[in-house]
């Protein structure tokens, strides 16, 4: 009897040992799929998720979008329009050829000229006037105008091999022939609509990865993705819907990884025009004046919103009440600008001061398929405004593809939108969202309400021209404080985002919403 037990124990431990030396594989269930393997084809998140595993950039970001050296080890500002960038020594492409300055120059030139690219990196390289390889690992850049954040601009463009990519078409990338990067994983295959498979790059310059093989399965349906994790078909999933968090944390053998992201959900307010289409008097008749133009009215609306209640009840905790563009941790966030308090009495007083003691009528617009809870939030806002004495004429929810066109065409008065900040500072976000719309200057590209404030514009211009990094952040904070004092938009909350995985996997939840095997580790 004793001998039998001993034998079984030996067999069991041998089996266990065998399973430990077995190759570690990772299967990820991803909500999105790339449109191409060419890393420069599209700058959207779904493409970057794949690109960042196979290719590298001059810089990489940490979980709070702080920048760190990747293919570039150092950079120096020689004079206002000259930069010298040193590349990492000993980096090899997947085909064994070394990374040189020529590859980087080629990549940055190529980024402008990708045929039919729907979201090109051309903005990232727009500042470059000329590039020169000083030696194999040093590049000298001349910029058209002084650009203090130059390295942040070029630092996020993926570097491809000149030899391979020079004559490659998009099909060559998709088939894997030209998918030669310096990244932690090598590209193996892509079956559109189904999966991408990668293998570990053992010659990677960075930290050795835990997984030999990685498969990324595309499961766009939320419920199916969660079911795939529960059935064990995948090890890790992204974009876990808030309503499933409670269930998943309750299942032993599963873990959830969460972080408040830098994606702000806000209520845009049509404050720039003298007349606005969806604001009426109490009887539903058009007003000859736009009440939203009055700062006190905007503040009153903001004070009527109970942000914590929305986060707790509609998002089941998956949010962080917001009072500015980016959350604490992201450079440019000002600690003194907090989420406006829920203060209905103060709001009523503000309304009375502005001459709207009796309230006015308003219609809210929102998308219904863009992010979790978008339609419900609009309903809740409607109720909160109604409780504050406004007459809510309606809450209209539409599919995003219909909604976004009308929102950009200024057809609405108050509408819900989101803005994800993926740059190291809030400067780009503020420039696009709140600076005066000016095509030539490249400002206000997502300023859908045409908000405009000369003082803020000047502050931002000064910020963006500042070379001293600390001074720049300080100026950015001052600009943030100044502009949110005026309530140009009503910030609601930062979305909390979740990944979930099996016990054997750990994942670095990150603000940039990246789903990548390089952020996953094997739990030992």
């Amino acid at each position, binding site marked *: 009897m004793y001998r039998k037990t001993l034998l079984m124990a030996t067999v069991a431990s041998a089996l266990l040992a065998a399973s430990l030396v077995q190759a570690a594989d990772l299967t990820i*269930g991803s909500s999105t799929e790339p*449109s*191409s393997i060419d890393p420069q*084809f*599209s*700058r*959207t998140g779904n493409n970057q998720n794949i690109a960042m595993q196979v290719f590298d950039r001059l810089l990489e970001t940490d979980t709070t979008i702080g920048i760190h050296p990747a293919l570039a080890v150092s950079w120096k500002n020689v004079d206002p329009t000259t930069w010298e960038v040193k590349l990492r020594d000993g980096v090899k492409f997947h085909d064994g050829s070394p990374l040189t300055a020529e590859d980087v120059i080629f990549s940055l030139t190529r980024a402008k000229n990708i*045929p*039919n*690219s*729907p*979201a*090109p990196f*051309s*903005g990232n390289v*727009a500042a470059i006037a000329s590039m020169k390889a000083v030696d194999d690992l040093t590049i000298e850049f001349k910029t058209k105008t002084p650009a203090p954040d130059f390295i942040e601009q070029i630092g996020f463009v993926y570097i491809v091999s000149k030899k391979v990519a020079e004559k490659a078409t*998009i*099909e060559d990338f*998709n088939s894997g022939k030209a998918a030669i990067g310096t990244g932690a994983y090598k590209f193996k295959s892509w*079956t*559109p*609509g*189904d*999966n991408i498979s990668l293998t570990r790059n053992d010659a990677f310059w960075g930290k050795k990865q835990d997984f030999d093989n990685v498969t990324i*399965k*595309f*499961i*766009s*349906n939320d*419920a*199916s993705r969660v*079911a*795939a994790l*529960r*059935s*064990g*078909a*995948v090890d890790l999933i992204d974009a876990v819907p808030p309503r499933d968090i409670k269930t998943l944390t309750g299942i032993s053998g599963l873990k959830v990884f969460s972080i408040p992201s830098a994606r702000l959900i806000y209520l845009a307010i049509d404050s720039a025009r003298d007349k606005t289409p969806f604001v009426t008097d109490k009887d539903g008749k058009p007003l000859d004046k736009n009440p939203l133009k009055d700062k006190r009215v905007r503040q009153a609306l903001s004070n009527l919103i109970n942000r914590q209640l929305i986060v707790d009840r509609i998002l089941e905790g998956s949010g962080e009440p917001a009072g500015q563009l980016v959350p604490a941790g992201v450079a440019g966030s000002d600690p003194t600008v907090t989420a406006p308090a829920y203060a209905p009495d103060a709001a009523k007083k503000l309304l009375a001061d502005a001459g709207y003691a009796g309230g006015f009528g308003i219609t809210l617009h929102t998308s219904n*398929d863009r992010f979790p809870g978008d339609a419900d939030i609009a309903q809740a806002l409607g109720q909160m405004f109604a409780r504050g004495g406004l007459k809510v004429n309606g809450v209209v929810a539409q*599919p*995003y*593809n*219909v*909604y*976004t*066109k009308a929102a*950009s065409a200024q057809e609405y008065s108050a509408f819900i939108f989101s*803005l*994800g*900040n*993926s*740059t190291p500072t809030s400067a*780009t*976000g503020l420039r*696009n969202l709140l600076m005066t719309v000016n*095509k030539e200057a*490249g400002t206000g*590209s*997502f300023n859908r309400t045409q908000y405009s404030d000369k003082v803020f514009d000047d502050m931002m211009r000064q910020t963006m021209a500042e070379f001293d990094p600390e001074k720049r952040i300080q100026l950015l904070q001052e600009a943030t404080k100044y502009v949110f004092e005026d309530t140009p938009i009503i910030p609601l909350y930062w979305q909390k985002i979740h990944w979930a995985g099996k016990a054997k996997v750990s994942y670095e939840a990150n603000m940039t919403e990246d789903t990548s095997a390089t952020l996953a580790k094997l739990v030992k």
Partner: protein
Amino acid sequence: MSVFVIRRLMQSIAVLVVTALIVFLGVYAIGDPIEMLISHDASPAERAQVILSLGLDRPLWQQFFTFCWNALHGDLGRSFVFNKPTITLIFERLPATLELTLTGLVFALALGIPLGLISGLKPNSVTDEAIMTGSILGFSLPGFWQGMMLIMIFSVWLGWLPSTGRGEMGSFLGIHSSLFTLDGLKHLILPAINLSLFKLSLVIRLTRTGVRETMPLDFVKFARAKGISERRIVFVHVLKNILIPLITVIGMELGSMLAFAVVTETIFAWPGIGKLLIDSIMRLDRPVVVAYLLVIVSLFILINFAVDILYSLIDPRVRLGDQS
């Protein structure tokens, strides 16, 4: 016959042109593709560059005529999102959907016709009641919910079958399909059942009604009087008669299964064309939507044509082209 074919061809071309126009205008009316495509921190210069490179700066009529002109030369445009020829994109995914649909259809017919026969031959028996009640469930439970339940039961709780994606591919007689590997078949079972449950119920009901209608007819009585075996009466004479409405409905259903297996494909992450269509509509990838619908309309035309030919083969009374 040839008159029939030529007339059909003319009608088909007219249908295709009208479809292209309607879809083109429809997608244009929905929204602005640029808003869906560009990165969320794009600069105005980037936006302008994209608009120019995708040809969206030109007036709509110009875009439409360019499309028609290219289509006449066999080029249905390139996807905004993938920058691939739309036809490549569609035919890359069509095999997966065909595989799923045909498996589902075979399942529906192989089970539906016998069950319908049993029901029809012994009406109001316990078996009949059971089959009919079952088919009501197949009809009325929404496909989406059915799919989720199949996943919950067979993948999450029992762990028998995989719930997502297409399995390993095998090759047989030069055809690549997941039908030829065990892993592939395992992946196929749940989505195929999900897709076929509704059709199964439909086939059962059609067959049952057909049998009930045909059995009391004179020719059946006559055949019985002649002393022909009951087996032969049911499987040759009755079955042949009920096949006509069945083929009509199945032909239409096959088309719609192929074109709109969206729900099943989305739940089971099946890399088919249904999912491609819904994604393309969401992203306003107009070239794909237009090309896809043109392909589907052509497919419907072909299927209807095949159904008409089949009629004439099964029912000698039908003569194609006689109307003229």
